[in-house]
């Protein structure tokens, strides 16, 4: 009840000097507005980066064969065929921190469909590959474990391959030949675009792992193994577990080097987080400075206001206001001034973020936590910078205040 009265009194006095109140709030409005704009755009671009990274695969771990070392001459990565389906099966059976595991057997070949042909890579994978690499099926369906077991001659086309081999035509149900083996097309992948390394992720044909291994390849070796860790936090543990399992499968003694390489996306994620971390630091310092300036503006005007209303304060004290009542009145006024400024700032910040995002093609993400923290913070700024003027008002001597002209 009393608090409501005090808020009403404060609102009235703010409304009495509309122009001045607005100018006072301007510092807070600009401060909060720029913070909200930049945070929305910053989070938007962070999300864009994360989406880009995620398009490579979910918590992806990639195993590649090691290099050949013959007489001191070392071959490049992947020159030593050391991975096999046994490794894949071992990981599937024993790994606890891996969500999905899939072999990758690649066969580069000329693919023929009717009058068209196209050179691309046919990759033999498990059904889990779809989830590991974040591919989506655009039409048709993906193959299942049953097709893998039976070495079924079915294929899934990437968008690029589908366009090249079947222009203006639905490829589902059509046939194509890969190294003279006929395949039936059962699905087309949704477009994924270029990877951050620059290769076309849609120039691809997927087929069951065993089909490619035994019908298109040598039947022994696997090019890569892709796996997905259960969560981003468990990446390192999953990597260690995978390494240990493969070493035991390969019967490597403790002092022998790995005959395979494990790579993950940690590097990419680290770069992304360090960029956004720097951005966040920058934004918070800008936020701090602008709110500080806005707060000083409020303190300045509240000091003027206290001087201007010395007589009013004297009257209030004379008729029985306690010093704490006067303190509360001016504190609430400062806080409301600051809060209204903060709210206007949030609204203008959000519309600015939306507009700039539209203009630059960056997504603007509105984070309710940031918005509510900003509201609380501006209130706190008002109380903090309002305290000195309010205390000055509360400590006025009623006699001097009444006589003040």
């Amino acid at each position, binding site marked *: 009840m009393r608090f409501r009265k005090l808020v009403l009194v404060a609102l009235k006095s703010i409304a*009495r000097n509309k122009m001045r109140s607005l100018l006072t709030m301007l510092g807070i409005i600009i401060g909060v507005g720029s913070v909200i704009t930049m945070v929305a755009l910053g989070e938007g671009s962070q999300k864009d980066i994360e989406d880009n990274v995620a398009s490579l695969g979910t918590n992806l771990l990639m195993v590649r064969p090691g290099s050949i070392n013959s007489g001191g001459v070392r071959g490049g990565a992947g020159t030593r065929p050391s991975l096999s389906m046994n490794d894949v099966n071992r990981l599937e059976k024993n790994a606890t921190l891996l969500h999905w595991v899939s072999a990758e057997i690649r066969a580069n070949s000329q693919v023929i469909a009717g009058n068209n042909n196209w050179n691309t890579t046919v990759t033999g994978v498990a059904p889990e590959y779809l989830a590991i690499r974040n591919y989506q099926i655009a039409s048709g369906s993906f193959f299942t474990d049953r097709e893998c077991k039976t070495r079924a001659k079915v294929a899934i086309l990437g968008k690029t391959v589908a366009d090249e081999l079947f222009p203006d035509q639905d490829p589902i149900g059509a046939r194509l030949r890969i190294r003279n083996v006929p395949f039936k097309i059962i699905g087309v992948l949704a477009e994924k675009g270029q990877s951050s390394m620059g290769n076309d992720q849609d120039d691809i044909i997927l087929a069951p792992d065993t089909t490619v291994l035994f019908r298109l390849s040598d039947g022994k070796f696997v090019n890569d193994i892709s796996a997905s860790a259960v969560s981003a936090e468990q990446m390192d543990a999953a990597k260690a577990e995978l390494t240990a399992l493969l070493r035991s499968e390969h019967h490597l003694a403790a002092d022998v080097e790995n005959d395979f390489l494990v790579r993950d996306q940690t590097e990419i994620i680290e770069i992304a987080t360090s960029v956004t971390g720097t951005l966040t630091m920058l934004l918070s310092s800008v936020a701090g400075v602008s709110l500080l300036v806005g707060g000083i503006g409020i303190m300045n005007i509240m000091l003027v206001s206290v001087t201007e209303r010395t007589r009013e304060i004297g009257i209030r004290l*004379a*008729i*029985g*206001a306690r010093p704490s*009542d006067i303190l509360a009145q001016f504190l609430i006024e400062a806080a409301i001034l600051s809060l209204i400024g903060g709210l206007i700032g949030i609204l203008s910040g959000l519309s600015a973020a939306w507009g700039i995002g539209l203009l630059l093609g960056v997504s603007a993400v509105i984070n309710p936590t940031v918005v509510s923290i900003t509201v609380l913070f501006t209130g706190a700024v008002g109380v903090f910078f309002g305290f000195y003027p309010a205390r000055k008002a509360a400590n006025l001597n009623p006699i001097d205040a009444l006589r003040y002209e």
Partner: protein
Amino acid sequence: MSTAQISLSRIRKVFSMGDVQVEALGGISLTICSGEFVAIMGSSGSGKSTLMNILGCLDTPTSGSYHFEGVQVEDLNRKQLADLRNTKIGFVFQGFNLLPRTTALENVELPLLYDRHRKNSDPRKSSIAALERVGLGNRLNHEPSQLSGGQQQRVAIARALVTQPSLIFADEPTGNLDSHTTLEVLDLFQKLNRAGLTLIMVTHEPEVAQYASRLVQLRDGQLLKDEAVCTPRDAATDLAENYCRGAA
């Protein structure tokens, strides 16, 4: 005249201005009973404003003791002084001291906003009643700038009355008013006094002091004269005469 409402004994007030010590009040002893209408007179510099501030609990004496309805005032802190002013004392000032751009009703409500003890009463209703009592029942939503000087002073009196104090201090209440509105205000004071309210009025005009029932005169911080007015003038009669003269 019953019990002593106010009793001052050897009240001294010394202001220090740099190295110079100025004694505004030099040991005043005074007793005022409930229901009195006291006029405090004196030229400027006589210490009457200082006395008024101390009596009104706006200031504390340098030495001496002050009892207000049995309460030792010099022992109170700022908070307790504020509560005492709020509940027991009403103030009427020379310059009216109303809040600008605030309606008469809201001005009168103001002391009730700071009243922590009477939670059940209806502030709006009491304020309207106080304004009706001073004859401004039809000016509730006028702001001070829309009211005449006499009307503004009556709003100030209503504000002093609204907390139902036992005592009203009036500091040069007629200083800014013409003779006719002066009489109106004095008439109101006399009516309130007859209804049982103690009134203490500071003035430097002898003709205004004639309407009080007791005259206290100060000079150089000392009591010069303290006497009952045998036959106080009646403001209502003088008002009526004024009207006749105006009509004639």
